[in-house]
């Protein structure tokens, strides 16, 4: 598959001045350290990491805003920092906390302006705009000033605005931040639909596990400037923690003694007829646990689940933190 985004040994260092008494000392902070990965055309990738991990720095290098200290990158065949304006016509960007819509004007006025900024043929623009209005259900508030829109309506208009010039790749930086459950789900569905139906490459950063689960097929985790995980979301969820959650409903009150004695099995929740177990499959096989459950009492219903993605992510971040504690000062070298 032709890569839409390709990074090779990308590195970015910042020089920061630290006050030491009357003097200022220069030190170098490595924000992105030797990052290599590629994203195929039409892929949907979640690029995640804790605060300060290097996500924004990487995205800013991929959109041509920042120059790397070392390494190379190619986005849709362009070198972002050398060919920023050519690349700008091929990509769209949505930043959840920064709007590209004019605050006092209705969204349709920003659409008109974007048509001029991207030099769109006016007939093509009208067709594309009308299609986006329909798909994103914008007609009800197209003529309402942006300041009067709800955050959910505004974000739908934001994403539609970033798709006006038919970009091949869309960069989304926390697009669902602050949205309510319904608006969040609507936006996720729209992005996923666009990725699936139009072959749009989606590169998403978010702290919301739901965004990652619903929008992305692949997840790249970055921590302290380095890629720590690059895998399919489903694989990561299934295999990373090696734990399973079992929900059981009994007809009668069960006897928990044998279950509690099992190595690697812990009771997460227990009430009269309901039991929730967390099983470390590396210590105890899942079938052995099921046998013990069936022996504990008459089972009415049973479900086996992977741990929630949120838990997987916090586990990965915590592991990264432990590594850093052992290796304090990595990434910072005094000049």
């Amino acid at each position, binding site marked *: 598959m032709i890569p839409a985004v390709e990074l090779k040994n990308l590195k970015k260092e910042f020089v920061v001045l630290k006050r030491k008494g009357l003097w200022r000392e220069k030190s170098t902070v490595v924000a992105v350290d030797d990052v290599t990965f590629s994203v195929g055309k039409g892929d949907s990738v979640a690029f995640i990491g804790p605060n300060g991990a290097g996500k924004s720095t990487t995205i800013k290098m991929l959109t041509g805003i920042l120059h790397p200290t070392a390494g190379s990158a190619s986005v849709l065949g362009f070198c972002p920092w050398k060919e920023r304006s050519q690349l700008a016509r091929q990509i769209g*960007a949505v930043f959840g906390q920064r709007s590209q819509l*004019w605050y*006092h004007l209705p969204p349709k*006025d920003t659409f008109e302006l974007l048509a*001029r900024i991207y030099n769109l043929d006016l007939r093509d623009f009208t067709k594309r705009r009308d299609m986006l209005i329909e798909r994103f259900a914008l007609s009800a508030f197209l003529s309402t000033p942006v300041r009067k829109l709800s955050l959910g309506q505004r974000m739908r208009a934001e994403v539609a605005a970033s798709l006006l010039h038919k970009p091949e790749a869309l960069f989304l930086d926390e697009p669902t931040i602050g949205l309510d459950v319904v608006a969040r789900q609507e936006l996720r569905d729209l992005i996923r639909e666009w990725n699936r139906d139009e072959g749009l490459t989606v590169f998403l950063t978010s702290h919301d596990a739901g965004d990652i689960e619903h929008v992305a097929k692949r997840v790249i985790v970055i921590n302290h400037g380095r890629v720590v995980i690059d895998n399919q979301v489903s694989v990561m969820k299934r295999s990373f923690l090696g734990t399973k959650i079992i929900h059981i409903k009994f007809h009668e009150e069960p006897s928990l003694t044998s279950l509690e004695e099992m190595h690697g099995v812990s009771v997460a929740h227990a009430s009269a007829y309901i039991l929730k177990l967390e099983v470390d499959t590396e210590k105890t096989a899942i079938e052995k646990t099921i046998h013990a459950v069936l022996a504990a009492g008459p089972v009415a219903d049973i479900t086996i689940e992977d741990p929630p993605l949120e838990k997987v992510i916090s586990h990965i971040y915590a592991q990264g933190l432990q590594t850093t504690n052992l290796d304090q000062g990595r990434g910072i070298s005094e000049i």
Partner: protein
Amino acid sequence: MNFFSKYLWIALTAARSNMAYIGEVSSRFIFLGVILYIFMRLWQVTYHETSASQLGGLTLTQMMWYLTITEAISLSATKVAQEVDEDVRNGTLAVQLTKPISYVLYRLATSLGERTIIFSMNLLIGAIIANTMVGSTPLSLAGLLLLACTLPLAFLLDFLGNFIIGLAAFWLEDTSGLALIYSRITWILGGLLIPLELFPYWLQPLVKALPFASMIYGPAKIFVAPDINNFVEIISRQIMASLAFSICLIILYRIALRRVFANGG
């Protein structure tokens, strides 16, 4: 053609956005009315007390219209320095860089679009007040034409100065103090309340050569006393100052872009 049309469209959008909340900014026009009235009364008293028919080469009527133009110009100033400062700090500058437009020209078009609307409104209100108080004597086609020619460069020059101050946000914690000092210097040395001819003789050549005079004094003087030689001199100074400011801005902007840090993780 496309290049200019996109920036023209940005200016039109900015003008339209400004019109959208014209009611909210009407307090500015009330302020202009009060200020103009007070200073016009002061000048009337000054002319009366000194029994002079002209001060600094201007009659009382010319002085009133001079004041109308200088006030209309200075009170139409947009918040360029503050906006650039905010764009630098909150990362909007970085977001703008992902679009196929120049950030500097985007800000210039926005500023010119907004300023044209505010200046036109200011001029309308000022003209009504001046006309009511002293009549329309200096109003001439030549004056209007020469004013229209010098205004764009005056606005450009003011924009460049303010943009440079806004860019200082890359190095300074707060640029609002700098912007305030800059605007007050522009008012004083630009001849907002007193024409430069009333400054001490030894100071006049220096003050007239400074870029501040090209922003306020020049256009107002050419309006009340149209003179082709004076016009050529003002335009030349405006062009030279604009070139000097542009060179400073380009150099600073290039250095600043290397300092665009990533906000957030």
